[in-house]
């Protein structure tokens, strides 16, 4: 009975303390993935800061800061005492050229980081191709 309850699949975020990336950034990035992929849709209430902090083994302030950053990006509405709610968001309009430059810059940074961590170029290329297919479909 407990297993059923415990294993019930709902959107999850994950952080890796050994990754060297600040916890707040990992939480923001994980949540943003769920928001972009519509796994968390407008109107969804997010769990309390306390619950998420206990589960992830981080300080309350870390989760609160992550929620604030996502609220500043327009993903969440933080109403005092009522928790965090996902709200409809309109992506900001950015010139195509500037956006492509930014994307290229970030991808290069990510690829360099992965190569520095020992991931083979073949694996990186394969993952990027798979990602391109997912992005094209969505």
């Amino acid at each position, binding site marked *: 009975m407990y297993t059923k*309850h415990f294993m019930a699949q709902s959107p*999850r975020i994950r952080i890796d303390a050994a990754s060297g990336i600040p916890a707040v950034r990992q939480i923001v990035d994980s949540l943003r993935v769920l928001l972009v992929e519509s796994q*968390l849709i407008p109107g969804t209430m997010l769990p309390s800061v*306390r619950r998420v902090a206990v*589960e992830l*083994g981080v300080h309350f302030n870390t989760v609160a800061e992550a929620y604030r950053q996502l609220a500043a990006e327009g993903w969440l509405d933080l109403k005092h005492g009522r928790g965090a709610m996902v709200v409809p968001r309109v992506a900001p309009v950015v010139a195509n050229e500037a956006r492509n430059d930014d994307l290229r810059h970030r991808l290069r940074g990510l690829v360099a980081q992965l190569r520095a961590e020992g991931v083979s170029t073949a694996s990186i290329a394969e993952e990027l191709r798979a990602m391109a297919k997912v992005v094209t479909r969505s």
Partner: protein
Amino acid sequence: MRLILCTIYIFIGVLVFATPNMSRRELLFAVPVPPDFRQSRAGQHAIRMFRLVIVIVVAAAAGALLLSPARLLGVTAAVAQIAIVLAGVISFRWQNHALASAAVQFARPREAEMSVAPDNLPWFAWLAGGPFVILSAAATWLYLHWDRIPARFPVHFGADGQPNRWAERTIKGVYGPLFFGAEICAWVVIMALAGWFGSRRSHSRPVMLGGAIAIEYMLGILFALIAVQPLAGIPIWVIMLSPMAILIPLIIVMTRKMSEPWEPMDPTPNECWKANVFYYNPNDAALFVEKRDGLGYTFNFANRWSWALLLSLALVIASVPFVLA
């Protein structure tokens, strides 16, 4: 009485002896190690040395209890008890220190469910009310047979089995053990609830809640037996040995449950464990985390609620002179 004391001390000795088995496979003497480390030469050597010390001290304590002159039995019993506990602590710490170089850091990502589904207690949580029913039933029985309770009855016994403290048939004298039992049981329930809501979701959590409820029953039954003893004439040895009837199966069941390979150990940072026993991590919001020196959970001492819970225990203990005759 000597034989009863010997039985209890040997039982405690067996528990201490079994300590290395009463933890996850990834822990040995509170040191985080690879799961197969126990079978290595170093692991087996550490277990053997720990147990050798315990066997020697328990055998010496039992021998001293059996051979001690009657007038020194009380002192011998106290010294033997302290010696067994001290031997366990020192030997554990010794092996903990010896294995420090084999320590590894558990590293796995943590996950959080982004759902507001309530964190419901398991179905068996209502059983926590049982000990209060037992204590209330004992109180009712005593009330109904008030006139049959002796005007003066023993409430404390020396190591020689003879009573050395008495109580009178008053509200405090008769119902005191029940009040105190209810206090202790309430504290255990509060701890169990704090453990449920203040720790990470895991398969160990319901096991620990069940364990806490079983301990609550042990205490409830123990204090109910103590309270009805003057009227029912229950032999003292029955009262003294009654906790074992719950403790032994509880330890066996919990050891088996906790040893099942459900999920890896919670990756709490090694540097936040003081002597691998006390957890202090201000950056972890959890109030309870899986302990490293045995079965169950322990406080995150950086969380101020842990101190509030310890203070509440101190208050329960401080209430003894006011509650018990």
